[in-house]
């Protein structure tokens, strides 16, 4: 009798938890479902109604976007910037992180703490930095440096932006690698360059994968600075095409869905490494 009561309680609890989970999943997926429906509607509307759906669904918005040469150019440009950003990050941040991990030098702790603060404070600080950066870029351009429209400059700015956080992430990962690896290579006569790029770096594949992933997402998703210096990335393209007198909601929705696909795919592929790298002190995305 009592046993039967317990069993039925368990069933009720299971039903309750399942329903709760479904509600949570729906709440999290709601914006995406919403955007997908809007992108498929024939009419360019933000409000989903039975009437709007009755008019029919279409993939024309997607086809239109893919066939838009500006979109293709934007994607290409974004890929170039993201690739440059990854290369710069690995080439510039990795040796610095190695030095922070392995050497003793004056001011090391101060810089690391400064990095930590810089990587954690956002908000007003970020806006102030953005304004300063804008003024700097305008000045540089006015003295004739090819800053505006230059993807290399944009990738360098992204890299600078990523320095504090990525340095910490890679440093922590390097800390977990046995020092004997470097020392063995050192005794065998390897140069510092060989040790960092041929021994330590390949031995830290999870950290490198995560750095590449973060760099890619940073470069792919950022549009404010890209708009500032007029580099037509795909994010800037979506931002610019969405603004205006009339907003074509259907097109906008289709573009954002297309825009998010690469990041989703990358996350699925790199999941394993993200978990591992996160354990080495990566506090936030």
């Amino acid at each position, binding site marked *: 009798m009592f046993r039967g009561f317990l069993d039925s309680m368990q069933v009720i609890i299971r039903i309750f938890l399942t329903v709760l989970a479904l509600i949570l999943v729906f709440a999290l997926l709601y914006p995406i479902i919403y955007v997908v429906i809007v992108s498929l509607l024939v009419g360019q509307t933000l409000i989903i109604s039975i009437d709007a759906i009755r008019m029919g669904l279409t993939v024309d918005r997607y086809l239109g976007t893919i066939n838009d040469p500006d979109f293709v150019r934007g994607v290409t440009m974004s890929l170039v910037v993201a690739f440059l950003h990854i290369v710069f990050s690995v080439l510039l941040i990795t040796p610095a992180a190695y030095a922070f991990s392995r050497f003793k030098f004056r001011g090391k702790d101060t810089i690391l703490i400064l990095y930590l603060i810089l990587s954690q404070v956002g908000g007003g600080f970020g806006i102030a930095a953005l304004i300063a950066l804008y003024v700097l870029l305008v000045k540089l351009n006015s003295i004739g440096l090819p800053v505006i429209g230059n993807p290399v400059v944009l990738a360098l700015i992204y890299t600078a932006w990523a320095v504090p956080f990525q340095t910490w992430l890679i440093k922590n990962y390097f800390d977990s690698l*046995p020092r*004997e*690896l470097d*020392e*063995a*290579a*050192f*005794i*065998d*006569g*390897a*140069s510092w360059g*060989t040790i960092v790029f041929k*021994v330590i770096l*390949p*031995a830290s*594949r999870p950290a490198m994968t995560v750095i590449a992933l973060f760099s890619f997402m940073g470069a792919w998703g950022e549009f404010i600075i890209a708009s500032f210096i007029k580099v037509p990335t795909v994010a800037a393209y979506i931002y610019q095409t969405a603004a205006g007198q009339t907003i074509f909601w259907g097109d906008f929705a289709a573009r954002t869905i297309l825009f998010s696909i690469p990041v989703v795919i990358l996350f699925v592929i790199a999941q394993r490494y993200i978990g591992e790298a996160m354990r080495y002190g990566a506090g936030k995305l």
Partner: protein
Amino acid sequence: MADVKLRGVTKKFGRVVAVNRVTLDISDGEFFAILGPSGCGKTTLLRLIAGLEFPDEGEILIGGRVVNNLHPRDRDVAMVFQNYALYPHMRVFDNIAFPLMVRRRELGLDKEAIRRRVVEVARVLGIEGLLDRYPRELSGGQQQRVALARALVREPKVWLLDEPLSNLDAKLRVQMRAELKSLQRKFGVTTVYVTHDQGEAMSLADRIAVMNEGRVLQVGTPDDLYLKPLDIFVATFIGSPSTNIIPCNVVSVETLELECAGFNLKTGISLDPGILKLGDKVYLGVRPEHVEIRKSQDEGVTLKGKVTIIEPLGSQSIVTLSLGSESIRALTSRDLKVDVGEDVYIRIDVSKTLLYDAKTGKLLL
């Protein structure tokens, strides 16, 4: 091949003196062990020879050349680390080839020559079948061999081994010990071997330096260290089970009679005059193998004790006895049947005892 000399080498880390005025002469082709408890500075000493640390004072000479400020690369030494330090992303072949690859221009080697040498060394170590594997696919013993091969492939002047066997299980350790010794003989390379395991040092080394708290206390052959430990620390560190140390007072100088905790011992040894005075405090060192247990009071046996612990080792047993207020350990044959709590007679082989000054800890006799 080369000899290694250390002249008054000191290394400090902040206030801690890790290595304190160490002077050593390691001959060409010798298998030399540095033995000591953890934290005694033995690994630091090895790292100083390797060039991973630089000495604060003193000189290090390899093959007659002062190498104090020389890059490790130019010292021509190879090191095997306790955790092997194999490169996880490289196959066994590339791991072994690495020391040759990084200096292939200097050595004037092409890829084919490197391949030949790697395969040759791998064959000597019995790992030629593993060259395509990654380190994570190997057992501990195999990883160990790869690490040894990587250190040998370059034919270095000096081979530095930092506790290379301590990550292996007991059976494999004994097996690798024998192999290591024959490898060292085969290559004839000067070897400095750091360990905290006295059995390992005794069985492998031609000579051993015993270190404690940054100092070298004694250098000698395994026999020297066992038969004549010059320092009380060496006496307790060498030999297993370790030497019994009993605090005593001198009550008669002529016949060297000692009053120890709860019992008296007439040694009948005549010392040179002036070494000891009446009432001096000394430590008596008795190896467990020189303590004999008798069930009956035979002639010349004056000491009486009680069995407190019996630890069977197979062919022998360690029997702990309470003697006066001290407890001493005896190594006995398994044929001797005693029980815990039993009263027994004890004979100490006086001719083999060691006598240490209580103040300095140095050997008197």
